[in-house]
């Protein structure tokens, strides 16, 4: 592999934005910020595929304006993987057959958690089983179907209130499913060359992971946690603080898996209590302190695994006893 394209300081980040004005995302939108960083990392020789979701509907609509300075095409909600493969296959075929100049073109899919972890999961898995280079799928995870009005997805955390998992007079917890770890599942695809998780803080971490992913020798996947003021019921000014708090409380684990080696990108030591992160968000405001402690217990247990994985440089599947209160509701 060629020299790692690492950006060491914020000053070295390209000043040109390929995701620019012309969209109407919410103030403090984490997913939009992720788009901006991603396209800074990918550069102009890139095609972007956008499955239906927040980053489809909120990036267009009103004035026929487009925020993209690179070729961009919508794809259906469950079609991110297939769209990426179709696009990459076209470039490889046309170049192989001499119908197009040979050069490196990035194919990037930016899909939400519903489109990636739920309806598009089969196609994503198919895409990760082929060998297309410079092909990166980024899952921007705002932990709900935020575009349609905050319905729970399979990556919504336990205890979150959503419009499909509201709390009520007899249901006190909200979402009873535990968050699916999509990146771990993708790492189980033998053809995948680079898997990482990231969040918006620190920004260089995500930019560099995206650069590494595109320079990998095959398909790559990044699971990006993006705070969502609309769905998490947070003040727009706290988006980056939430990213940071997710890391510091250990509720989001930033890691990389490359060439068979696992490594943590950040170790929260000492790890802060999850309460700090949860209490910033109204979607968790109904949780009583015993439920918060339940989440703290699960997080601590999970971290035993993450530290062990980091120490041994191998992938393991964290096993956490489900919260007792799930069955009792």
């Amino acid at each position, binding site marked *: 592999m060629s020299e790692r394209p690492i950006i060491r300081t914020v000053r070295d980040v390209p000043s040109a934005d390929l995701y620019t004005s012309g969209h109407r995302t919410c103030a403090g939108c984490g997913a939009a910020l992720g788009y901006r960083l991603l396209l800074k990392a990918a550069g102009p*020789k890139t095609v972007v595929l956008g499955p239906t979701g927040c980053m489809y509907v909120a*990036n267009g609509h009103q004035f026929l304006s487009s925020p*993209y300075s690179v070729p961009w095409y919508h794809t259906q909600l469950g*079609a991110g993987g297939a769209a990426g493969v179709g696009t990459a296959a076209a470039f490889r075929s046309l170049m192989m057959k001499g119908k197009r100049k040979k050069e490196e073109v990035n194919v990037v899919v930016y899909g939400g958690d519903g489109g990636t972890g739920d309806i598009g999961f089969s196609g994503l898995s198919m895409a990760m089983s082929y060998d297309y280079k410079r092909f990166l799928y980024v899952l921007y995870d705002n932990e709900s179907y935020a575009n349609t009005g905050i319905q729970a997805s399979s990556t919504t955390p336990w205890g979150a209130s959503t419009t499909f998992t509201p709390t009520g007079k007899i249901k006190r917890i909200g979402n009873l499913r535990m968050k699916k770890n999509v990146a771990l599942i993708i790492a189980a695809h033998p053809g995948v060359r680079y898997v990482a998780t990231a969040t918006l803080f620190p920004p260089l971490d995500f930019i560099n992971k995206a650069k590494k992913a595109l320079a990998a020798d095959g398909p790559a996947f990044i699971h990006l946690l993006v705070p969502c003021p609309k769905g998490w019921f947070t003040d727009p000014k706290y988006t980056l603080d939430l990213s940071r708090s997710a890391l510091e409380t250990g509720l989001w684990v930033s890691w990389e898996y490359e060439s068979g080696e696992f490594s943590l990108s950040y170790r929260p030591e000492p790890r802060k209590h999850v309460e700090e992160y949860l209490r910033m968000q109204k979607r968790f405001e109904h949780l009583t302190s015993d439920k918060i402690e339940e989440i703290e217990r699960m997080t601590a247990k999970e971290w035993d695994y993450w530290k062990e994985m980091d120490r041994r440089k191998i992938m393991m599947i964290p096993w956490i006893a489900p919260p007792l209160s799930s069955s009792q509701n």
Partner: protein
Amino acid sequence: MPKTASKSVVKNLPKRFMWTGTRAIAEAVKLADVDVIAAYPIRPYTGVMNSLAKMLADGEFAAEMIGADSEHSQFEIAKHASAVGARTFVGSSGVGLAYAAEPIVVTALGQLPVVAMAGCRALDDPGNFGMEWNDVLIFRDSGWLMSWAKDPQEALDMVLVAYRVSEDRRVLLPSFVAVDGAAITHISAPVEPPSREGVTRFLPPYKPQYPLDPAYEPVTKAQHIAPSLIGPELRKIVDNSMTQAVEVIQEAWRAYAAFVGRVYPPFIEEKYMEDAEIALVTMGAYAKDAVHVATKLRQEGLKVGVVRIRYFRPFPAKELAETLGKVKAAGVVDFSYSFGSTDSSSVLFNEVKSALYESSSRPLLLDFMFVGGREPSVEHFEQAVRLLQKGSGKGVIERHVWWPTLRGENQ
């Protein structure tokens, strides 16, 4: 003819092969130098993908071939490869097409010249290898061109013409080339493939107007819109394309005839219609059986003609009204159903009926529904003609819709 001349003619005759419909279509895909192929198995279409995979393994031509995880992904792959500028091939059958409904719909609205083979098969449930047209016809309203071949030779020809028509900038719509399951997909017949050089001239490489490629100006395609902005205008583009396709299809078949020497009437093929009083109207492979029955019954003095519809979209309403205006009674030999439609009849029947509505001279119109996959016999077609004859004699008929292959009292 002098002996020497006839010998040289024989020598120069193009080579003929015994090919199934799926093999013939695979040969067309190879001749068209398709760049990206997306596959997923389902009978009876899937033989085409087996053939293509073997051709690629043997180095007969070069393409990227993806075995997808589903028909949904399969049609998405073709759509997105087409948007970059690749010539693409895809296909399916039965419930596979239903599974791919979402990408099928957006491919047409995205104006992408994907060509798909449909190996017509009954929809589930229960699983059924029989032949019905509903798997394709559920997309009749979505902006795909649809043609029905009668045999492997025409299937090959239709695929090459489909690429030419679909990629024409006056059209830019995807095409289904439908072939009847088993009767065409699995039955071998003589096929004469055209020369590769000839095909290259007939079908130059696809060059999209706005490729999704950073080598060109950046394009934002299918951005979400407020419906009030350009919603109706976007629909009208597809509608205009469909209208313009009528002329482009005629041009393409003329050019194809000049190139290969086989002449097809573009929209409807007529047999014995010059003096016919009764007509059978159908599409696909069973038109041959209808012609066989007509030939036989003409020996009895019955003036039977056959009309074979080659394109369901755009639908040849004018041509049908003209030719059926000459007969007293016509029967639609139909492998589709449309439960609860007018007379609870079928898709093709309703379409033919509406084509005749404005006509001053309308025949009695009967529907013969061969549904559920049970294969018809020539006796069924004969019975159909006799019913038509009875009706045309009286000038009136009480019952319009018949299920000839159904067992039990309802028939």
